């Protein structure tokens, strides 16, 4: 099995439209949550696709504009995040043959808002339905577009796991590289644009944060006063590559995927399951060859859901055991909102930034922790020498996931 490194990261989010801006926002604990016409959210605003890809190499920029210039917004944002990761991995300067590069897109129901917004025009005159609708209405339009932009012709597909989709993507892409199916895999966690129907549906389940006069205080992961999650928009990208390929190309790994685990609860409901969560955390650590006391940092799933955070806190206490008082715990969703299908990839980018940057980011609004035994990062960032990080993701339908990232190949 090949060892799998992260050689590039990219992100377009409410708190930063590139990795440098995103990392600065993490350090500052700056939240992207605001009041929007649809309700509380962390939207990507003031963003232009041509500007976002302006810094790419000329051939790459031209292909991006030609392939995705008229694509639905989630695809444009995905391409922009991918261009960042591709450039950071220096794949333009030191290329890999296209048929050795795979594409995995994490997330599903990615076109719901696109279809929803076309409905009024359709009611008025069906003849003006955009001619590319048959292509644009497919989630896999992301895959085809990314494949075209980067000339990536190895294996590719979308993968889904509700809010665990991002981690499912990390696992699938890691397996493609570990097995030698490809040398390199471009993974994108795709931006999820909620429709008013989806928002309403989450609210009906009691999953959404209650409206408040101070949007910045609405999302409160692990706080006793939390009321639910706030939807966030982001696309995030990782270039995952065999360490052998990275060495051949002379590109230093930013982190290594040391272990991972996926497991189901046998429960189609929205309820979290303590045993299922403990199981994947333990399995991911075991796959990485780590003891619970080796974990330096946990990027928790922590959406600020009432039941979800409580169960995750209990799962961490159980799975970390004697390591419970040494591993830092925070929630990136307090800053980015819950990026749903993209969340696991957003949080992988955040984790790589913290491993490399030697810090742990704040969890704003955590005034009264639900579990006093956990070592939560408080209102300000802390310097931290991190070697091993755990990133959790739990989805509706009993889909549990955990990924372990290590700072360098020697430590995985």
């Amino acid at each position, binding site marked *: 099995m090949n060892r799998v490194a992260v050689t590039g990261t990219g992100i377009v989010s409410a708190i930063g439209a590139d990795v440098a801006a995103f990392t600065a926002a993490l350090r500052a604990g700056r939240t992207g949550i605001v009041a929007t016409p649809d309700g509380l959210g962390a939207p990507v605003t003031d963003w232009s696709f041509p500007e976002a890809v302006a810094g790419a190499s000329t051939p790459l920029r031209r292909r991006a504009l030609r392939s995705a210039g008229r694509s639905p917004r989630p695809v444009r944002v995905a391409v922009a995040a991918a261009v960042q990761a591709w450039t950071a991995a220096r794949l333009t300067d030191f290329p890999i043959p296209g048929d050795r590069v795979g594409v995995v897109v994490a997330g599903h129901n990615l076109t719901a808002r696109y279809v929803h917004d076309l409905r009024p025009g359709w009611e008025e*005159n069906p003849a003006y339905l955009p001619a*590319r609708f048959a292509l644009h209405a497919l989630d896999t339009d992301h895959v085809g577009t990314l494949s075209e932009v980067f000339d990536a012709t190895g294996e590719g597909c979308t993968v889904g796991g509700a809010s665990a989709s991002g981690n499912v993507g990390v696992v699938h892409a890691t397996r493609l590289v570990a097995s030698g199916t490809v040398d390199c895999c471009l993974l994108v966690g795709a931006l999820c644009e909620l429709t008013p129907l989806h928002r309403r549906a989450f609210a009906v389940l009691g999953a959404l944060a209650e409206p408040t006069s101070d949007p910045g205080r609405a999302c409160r992961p692990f706080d006793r006063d939390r009321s639910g999650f706030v939807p966030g928009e982001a696309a995030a990208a990782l270039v995952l590559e065999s360490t052998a390929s990275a060495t051949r190309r002379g590109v230093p790994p930013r982190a290594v995927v040391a272990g991972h685990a996926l497991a189901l609860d046998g429960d189609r409901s929205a309820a979290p399951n303590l045993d299922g969560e403990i199981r994947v955390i333990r399995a991911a650590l075991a796959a990485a060859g780590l003891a619970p006391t080796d974990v330096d940092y946990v990027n928790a799933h922590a959406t600020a859901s009432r039941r979800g955070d409580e169960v995750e806190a209990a799962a961490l206490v159980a799975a970390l055991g004697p390591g419970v008082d040494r591993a830092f715990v925070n929630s990136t969703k307090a800053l980015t909102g819950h990026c749903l299908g993209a969340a696991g990839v957003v949080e992988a980018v955040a984790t790589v930034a913290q491993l490399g940057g030697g810090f742990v980011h704040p969890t704003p609004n955590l005034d009264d922790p639900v579990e006093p035994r956990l070592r939560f990062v408080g209102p300000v960032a802390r310097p931290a020498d991190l070697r091993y990080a755990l990133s959790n993701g739990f989805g509706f339908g009993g889909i549990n996931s955990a990924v372990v990232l290590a700072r360098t190949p020697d430590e995985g």
Partner: protein
Amino acid sequence: MTVFEVVRDSLLEVVPEVDPDAVTPGRTLADLGCTSIDRAEIVTLSMERLGVVVPITEFRDVNDLDTIVELLGRHV
């Protein structure tokens, strides 16, 4: 705006890399680097802007600008 101008502007929006001066009567869409899906998009956009509806089957096998302009023009 003439029908030709509407079609030209729609074409340049769908395939922005085309040189605007190259979009002249007598050219085919294939000459200009357009795929069949680009053609469908150009025709749909042009119909919407002209406020006309032409059965999509009338454009089958049509690949030159003059015929597209003529078909659209009959309905304006």
